[in-house]
């Protein structure tokens, strides 16, 4: 059967990662290419690079990172952050990424999803969703609302509706980030993940809140996620990907064990 995917996420600013790996000395902890290679060898099933460079004119640096990553890792990787146009998508895919992730650009201009899917195939287009719990209301029946700008701007859009709409428009996958759980290391938002993952027929990657292997077990079983994004828990050397996978496997979650 299909394995659940474990996906480290690297934040890249001006060509450097913003968090270092703490438990190995022989790699440049700021170099996203070396970190990508490191996680590839550790058994990551996929890698996400998220460009948090503030100004869009630094894009060539990110493209260079993508190109260098593509030469050294032979698993899928996706790139998100600052992707607004078909041209942006084309640049990143030609540089060697498998997938591009669009988030606020898709909220502001949903057509970009269909255009991207038409041009490059559904499997290339990941919809990133930032979601905040607001409680059910007439306008937000599922109780979770789409936000942008790191959670500062509420869009008045129901998260479940948006997930289904993105699927209809041609997104191949959803990366679902809970703004409430993000950075807490206290566990994923399970209720939200389950709601979205069982509400669409495309794969859903859970994001935000991972702090220990039990959190991944929870979100991949109870939360019904197809994949789990991790960051701090591996970047700071608290766990290796192998340890996380061993834990999941012992607890009945199918993961890729040999690489």
């Amino acid at each position, binding site marked *: 059967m299909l394995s659940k*995917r474990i996906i480290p996420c690297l934040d890249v600013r001006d060509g450097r990662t913003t968090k270092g790996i703490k438990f190995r000395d022989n790699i440049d902890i700021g170099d996203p290419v070396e970190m990508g290679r490191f996680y590839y060898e550790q058994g990551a099933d996929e890698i996400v690079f998220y460009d948090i460079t503030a100004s869009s004119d630094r894009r060539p640096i990110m493209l260079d990172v993508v190109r260098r990553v593509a030469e050294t890792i032979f698993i899928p990787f996706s790139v998100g952050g600052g992707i607004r146009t078909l041209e942006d998508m084309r640049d990143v895919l030609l540089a060697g990424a498998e997938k591009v992730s669009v988030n606020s650009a898709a909220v502001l201009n949903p057509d970009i999803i269909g255009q991207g899917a038409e041009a490059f195939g559904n499997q290339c287009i990941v919809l990133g969703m930032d979601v905040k719990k607001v409680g059910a209301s007439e306008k937000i029946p599922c109780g979770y609302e789409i936000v942008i700008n790191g959670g500062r701007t509420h869009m008045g859009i129901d998260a479940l509706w948006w997930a289904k709409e993105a699927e209809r428009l041609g997104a191949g996958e959803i990366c679902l980030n809970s703004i409430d759980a993000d950075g807490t290391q206290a566990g994923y938002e399970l209720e939200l993940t389950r709601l979205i993952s069982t509400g669409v027929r495309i794969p859903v990657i859970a994001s935000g809140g991972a702090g220990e292997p039990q959190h991944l077990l929870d979100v991949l079983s109870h939360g019904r996620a197809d994949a789990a994004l991790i960051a701090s828990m591996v970047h700071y050397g608290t766990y290796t990907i192998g340890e996380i996978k061993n834990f999941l496997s012992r607890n009945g979650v199918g993961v890729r064990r040999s690489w």
Partner: protein
Amino acid sequence: MIAILDYKAGNLTSVMRALDYLGFPCRITNSHDEIRKADRVVFPGVGAAGKSMEGLGELGLDKLLRELFSAQVPILGICVGLQVLFDLSEENQTRCLGILPGAVRRFPENMRSDEGDFLKIPHMGWNEVKFRKNHPVFRDIPAGSEFYFVHSYYPQPEREDISIGTTEYGITFTSAVAFRNLVAVQFHPEKSGKPGLRLLDNFCRWSGVS
């Protein structure tokens, strides 16, 4: 030299990067002369079967592929590059190359997991390929190895003896086929880590005799 067929479909550079990494000279090309001179051919593919067939037809690569197949040139089809080798794809009822007898079907809707949830389509991620037969391209790949898949359609060969690997996703489907000098896989070896690189390496050393 290995020719990677360029018919404007999908991400060809990832195959090239993997072959570069393994140290095999290769070239992305649609020049008939160059392709005829190649020792072997990789036929990749991402996207829709119909668009791929259109691209192949416009460049005359459909005829050339049949010619190379008859001329015993080792050929490796990947993903849609496997699918269009069959007679027909259910994806927009596309007539395909007809080099291999059989059809390409869409995963049934409403397949469910053990928990009772609908199985997601596309089938995206890592899954095991069970080797049904020894084939030179599988050499030194441990049993139980997983490969990276992303597809909504799967091949259904008419002749079961050409199926050399199977995978389970709601149903059991053929994920690797071999017929004479042709091997084709539904997964992406160029994105499947070490077992995938091993398969590519094996192909690049294969005589073309099964």
